[in-house]
């Protein structure tokens, strides 16, 4: 097990380093942040002062070297726009994004798995067919459009839920969270659902496919023959065996939820990292963009690691294989 983890960690360091190079160079050859920062009425001298102060007059390899040296000390640079550490800006917004991603992941599980199992067990029922047809919409409708429609229907026309923003927050272990207040939940519902739609559909399809396959296996038949209750068959024998692909995909999708909450956060003005990154991209706030992408890379690497470990717990064969390897 430890050999497995160490090897994975070494791969991770390599991935992070290559990404840092790609991201840094990629971000730095596009445009010029000076034009986004200065007042249009500024004269040539002021423009030059800003270029110098931001270190943009240095050759790119020098800038990269500077970045790496500082990054190793845990300093990912200061935002050009806010003049605050980029890492701090991102960490400030992180709880809001995590909250949104976790709630939408829970939605995907709570809504997706039961519907998927049902559709798998009774594939010919009308309900199952409706569920499957609807899940196609969940896949194919662009989330910004669905988000706007949700706002139109639930906020503007029906007035049931607020149209944007995060609700009241309360501190939980020193982190401000909104899911513990009524106002917070009301604000959370629409954006979380919007973000979850794709994954709900995905989980429904995965679970259904898994169920259809497993339900005809010998051990399920045997369990039936043994006279086990339907609940025990479903929750113990069936669930356990269909969960592996679901866990893998959800693990990967969780990273995706965080990285791609950008659209949902923009539409619902959710004060998370996604909104920060969009503003940073539009204004070429390079340190924030670089820091954000680095965090996302690390996040994906960690999630993959966790998924691998979960695998080996769920499926002993993975463990044994690794021992041999």
């Amino acid at each position: 097990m430890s050999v497995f983890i160490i090897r994975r960690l070494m791969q991770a360091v390599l991935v992070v380093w290559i990404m840092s190079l790609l991201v840094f160079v990629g971000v730095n050859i596009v445009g010029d942040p000076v034009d986004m920062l200065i007042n249009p009425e500024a004269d040539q001298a002021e423009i030059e002062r800003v270029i110098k102060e931001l270190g943009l007059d240095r050759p790119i390899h020098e800038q990269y070297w500077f970045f790496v040296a500082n990054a190793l000390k845990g300093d990912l640079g200061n935002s050009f726009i806010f003049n605050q550490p980029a890492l701090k800006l991102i960490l400030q917004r992180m709880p809001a994004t995590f909250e949104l991603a976790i709630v939408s992941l829970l939605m995907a599980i709570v809504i997706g798995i039961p519907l998927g199992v049902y559709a798998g067990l009774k594939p010919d029922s009308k309900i199952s067919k409706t569920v499957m047809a609807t899940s196609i919409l969940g896949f194919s409708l662009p989330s910004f459009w669905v988000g706007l429609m949700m706002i139109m229907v639930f906020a503007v026309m029906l007035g049931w839920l607020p149209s944007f923003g995060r609700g009241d927050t309360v501190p939980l272990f020193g982190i401000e969270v909104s899911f513990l207040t009524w106002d917070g939940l009301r604000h959370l519902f629409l954006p979380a659902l919007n973000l979850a739609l794709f994954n709900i559909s995905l989980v429904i399809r995965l679970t259904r496919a898994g169920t259809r396959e497993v339900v005809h296996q010998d051990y399920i038949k045997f369990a039936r023959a043994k006279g086990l209750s339907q609940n025990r068959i479903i929750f113990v024998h069936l669930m356990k065996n269909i969960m592996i692909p679901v866990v893998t995909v959800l693990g990967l999708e969780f990273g995706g939820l965080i990285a791609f909450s950008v659209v949902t956060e923009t539409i619902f003005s959710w004060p998370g990292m996604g909104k920060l990154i969009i503003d940073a991209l539009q204004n070429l706030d390079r340190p924030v963009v670089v820091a954000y992408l680095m965090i996302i890379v690390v996040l994906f690497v960690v999630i993959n690691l966790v998924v691998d470990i979960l695998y080996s717990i769920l499926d002993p064969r993975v463990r044994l294989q690794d021992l041999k390897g």
Partner: protein
Amino acid sequence: MYLNKTLYATMLAAAMSLPASALMAADLTVGMNAEPSAIDPHYHNLGPNNAMAQNIFNRLIEQDDKQRLLPGLATSWKAIDDLTWEFKLRKGVKFHDGTPFTADDVIFTMERAVNVPNSPASFVTYIKGKTASKIDDYTIQFKTERPYPLMPQDISNVPIVSKKHGTGATTADYNSGKAAIGTGPFKFVKWVPGDVIELTKNADYWGDKTEWDNVTIKPIKSGPGRVAALLAGDVDFIDDVPPTDISRLKKEANIQLSQGISNRVIYLHMDQFREDSPFITANDGSKIKNPLLDNRVRLAISKAINRELIVERVMEGVAVPAGQLLPEGFFGVSPNMKPEKYDPAGAKKLLAEAGLPDGFKMTIHGPNDRYINDAKIAEAIAQMLTAIGIKTTPITMPKAVYFKRASRGGPDNSPEFSFVLVGWGSGTGEASSPLKSLLHTYDKAKGFGAANRGRHSNVEADKLIEEALATVDDKKRSDLLIKATELAVGQRLGIIPLHYQVNTWAARKGIVYKARTDERTTLHLVSSTK
């Protein structure tokens, strides 16, 4: 079913009663497109920050909704001689913590505003070349090395901070509220970046007090999102209404719009400094001498553009055709210059006279996320020019990429493009601002022509502009600016003006706001009809 109906009715009633209760508490919730990058009023000299600073801080001179100067913390100002300006300060003004405002705060502000560490855009633009000295507690003098008429305009851009709280204070101290203590109509409460800014009424304000006890500002970047928030009643007031939603909002009985022309002109800059312009070729793709150097060709382009059509179709009626640098009513605006009439036949004739009866090939470059409908305008112009024989291809790109290339993407930091779409808002509210930056010869030493992306150059116009910038007498200066505009824009077509932007604000019924030419949302001027 019956139950559902009752429930729905109750909810509807509850929703409808919400605005009424909000009115009683005199709280205002605002959805704004842009968020400031700091509460520190001297950190970032840029639109959103300056607009936010207005709520908490005052300036010595304020600008009204048409950018005319009004007494602020100074009650009067005048030039004693060509090099000295004297400002009389307002007595009895107190900062939010009760300390009195005096000349010391002004002196402190002038020092601090140019020395904020890591400022991405500093106030040096307004303060350089001016030495402030205190005569007594309520009198300040500014000395300049050369006669400088724009003293009041420059000073009307600098927010005054408290010496007591500002000494040693960093930008972070302002952002946290520790140092954000001004004399303005609102006191700062808190800022959660990306989420909310909260302000509360300054009950001891020296000027007209605001009617709002508490103001909550929510940054909502997405245009449809702002409109939806207003329609849903989650906010009372929004800025920057997307043109596509204006006709819809007009039909809503509970929504009131406020529209006004801005100080921003959308215009075209043309390569006037290269014989061989990179994005212009003959019809067969071979090299030709840059036709934009020819006055007749520039006039032909101007005549080929149907400004009325652009305003009506592309801008959905929300713009005004432009014939010069600033709309009527601003300082230094010529009464004679009207938008060029659409005249394709005349344009073709001019092209023929210039020896190009069959036209040539050209690319128009423009941003696609900076001005209202900018990419569509570039496309429309390309079609109109193609119609008179100048086969024009539109290329648009994000502002983050565009402005660098348009300003200094070419060799030796020269402008890269041949024909560009740009906009200019005059911060001082007079024609000297665009004349100085867009039409004066590019001159690094003097700091002129910094945004002259076509490198238009005309010695006579330069002289007029420089003379105007050294003439303290308003009447004379206005005449000089008019002459310079008539020469540089009217006769020489240094730029081709297209239209002035119109900005739109929207509020729920019962709230009124007078549209400002400087595009700012000044919260204490938002009022309720009651």
